[in-house]
């Protein structure tokens, strides 16, 4: 295991950020820490980096207990949500910072920085200052800076959170490709389940300072461990005691015994998919997801009465 977090707890005053959390991260993997804000995911990342000291528990990186070590002695690369760019330094100087601290030879630094700037597609911007870069460029600079010192693990704290949706999607894909090339053990913190599912091999779902489930994206979606994971990862309708994904609801125009009656409250076109909001007779609301073709075949209209039936549902307890 490249990173091993054992029984770590951290409180901020009355607030318990981490409650006996244990997580294992395999060498060379890309792991996402996923959870809503206040779930403790960022605190966990900062504990791994040494930027927060845990109240109890220990952190191992590559088999070494680093719990008492300062961040500068841990060999981690850290990427911040708001870039933490060194504003008074050029892009080149930013990326070279870690190497110049390590007193590497000038030629060696130049070569390494040039390589990295090419890797993050910032060649030609070496002499710019961070204030002259776009958010996406700044974050790629932050990544190059963190990678420059060959960290044993790369930690990213909501790295794309401050970027607009398109840039975020681009960088996400690019990060995954980068990881496939470099194979640096990477942990990324995100509150965006789509982002976690898209980039990560392993997703650690956190909620109120505890780990709810650790699984690959497919398993997480198909076999959520509990109600929280079911509703946080992907959409889910609550039908009595059971949960149903919006695409696991079948819509028909005629009743057939197992169906229940509902009225179409709203039809939302989202490109390829169509979302239909229903209200049942008992006042319960449901969301149904159809492909555009399916929706067109049924010729649905607002206010229409339809019949709905779950094809697959999940019950906990």
């Amino acid at each position: 295991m490249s990173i091993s977090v054992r029984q770590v707890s951290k409180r901020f005053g009355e607030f318990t950020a981490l409650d006996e959390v244990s997580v294992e991260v395999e060498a060379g993997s890309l792991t996402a820490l996923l959870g809503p804000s206040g779930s403790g995911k960022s605190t966990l990342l900062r504990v791994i980096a040494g930027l927060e000291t845990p109240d109890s528990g220990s952190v191992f990186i590559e088999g070494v207990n680093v719990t008492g070590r300062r961040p500068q002695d841990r060999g981690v690369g850290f990427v911040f949500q708001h870039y933490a760019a060194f504003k008074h330094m050029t892009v080149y100087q930013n990326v070279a910072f870690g190497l110049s601290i390590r007193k590497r030879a000038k030629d060696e630094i130049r070569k390494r920085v040039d390589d990295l700037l090419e890797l993050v597609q910032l060649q030609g911007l070496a002499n710019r200052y961070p204030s002259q870069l776009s958010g996406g460029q700044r974050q790629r600079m932050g990544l190059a800076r963190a990678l420059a010192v060959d960290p044993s693990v790369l930690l990213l704290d909501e790295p794309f959170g401050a970027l607009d949706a398109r840039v975020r999607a681009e960088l996400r894909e690019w990060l995954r490709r980068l990881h496939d090339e470099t194979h640096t053990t990477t942990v990324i913190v995100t509150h965006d389940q789509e982002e976690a599912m898209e980039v990560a091999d392993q997703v650690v779902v956190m909620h109120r300072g505890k780990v709810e489930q650790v699984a690959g994206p497919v398993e997480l979606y198909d076999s959520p461990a509990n109600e929280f994971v079911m509703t946080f990862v992907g959409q889910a309708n609550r039908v009595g005691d059971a949960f149903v994904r919006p695409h696991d609801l079948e819509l028909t125009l005629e009743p057939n015994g197992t169906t229940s009656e509902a009225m179409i409250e709203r039809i939302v076109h989202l490109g390829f998919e169509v979302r239909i909001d229903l209200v049942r007779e008992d006042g319960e609301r449901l969301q149904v997801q159809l492909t555009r073709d399916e929706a067109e075949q049924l010729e649905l209209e607002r206010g229409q009465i339809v019949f709905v039936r779950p094809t697959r549902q999940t019950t906990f307890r």
Partner: protein
Amino acid sequence: MNGRKVSLRVIALGYLGVILVAPLALVVWRTFAYQAGDAWKALSDPETVHAFKVTLEATAIAVPLNTVFGILCGLAIVRRRFPGKGLVNAFVDLPLAISPVVVGLALFLLYGRTGWFGHWLNAHGYQILFALPSIVMATVFVSVPFVAREVIPTLREIGDEQEQAAHTLGASSLQTFWRITLPSIRWAVVYGVVLTTARCLGEYGAVAVVSGAIQGKTETATLRVQEEYENLNTAGAYGISLVLAAIAVTTLVLMSIVKPREERV
């Protein structure tokens, strides 16, 4: 809208003009218009030269001391948690709240012949009052807040993420300070130094109490102005005032020239 903007500007400029510019301009005018010769005579007097020397000496000691203190104090207040932090924060401002004359009296009580420290120091042959040490102490005291007051909001604004990033990249606390923190707050420090310098050069009240204003020995430039004025040598008083004002204005102007526009953080 536009009319309101203009009238605001007129009020602001008018106020500055009446309060600041007019008296300064008068000093300049009075010095040059009629008594340039007398002013020059007063300025070239060895006792005046000595008075400037004393002022500059006190300033040269107080400014570096308070710069280092101000930066450390700012870092402690913004970046660290320690008991009594609020108290330290309040105490930094104390010299702004207390009249310099009171400061002078306090020093007098401490270091006078019968004072707490003065008794012992005098017995061991150290002269504090009516000598350079007391002038320096008074100057240091009254100019404490300026660097800290400039540095603290800037440190708050830049946050500590850059410092954390430097740590994760392998930088020690000292390396982080020299390479990240100090360059980020440099303009605040420069501005603080300018204000501190101006305050040191202009200090009058506290120094008046503790120095004894012995001509050619413990008289500072501002005390010299008072002296000349009392001796009805107004030309000399204007001349010395003008030089003091000129030093302050020059440092301010130099700073605003050196400071790049986009870096007004």
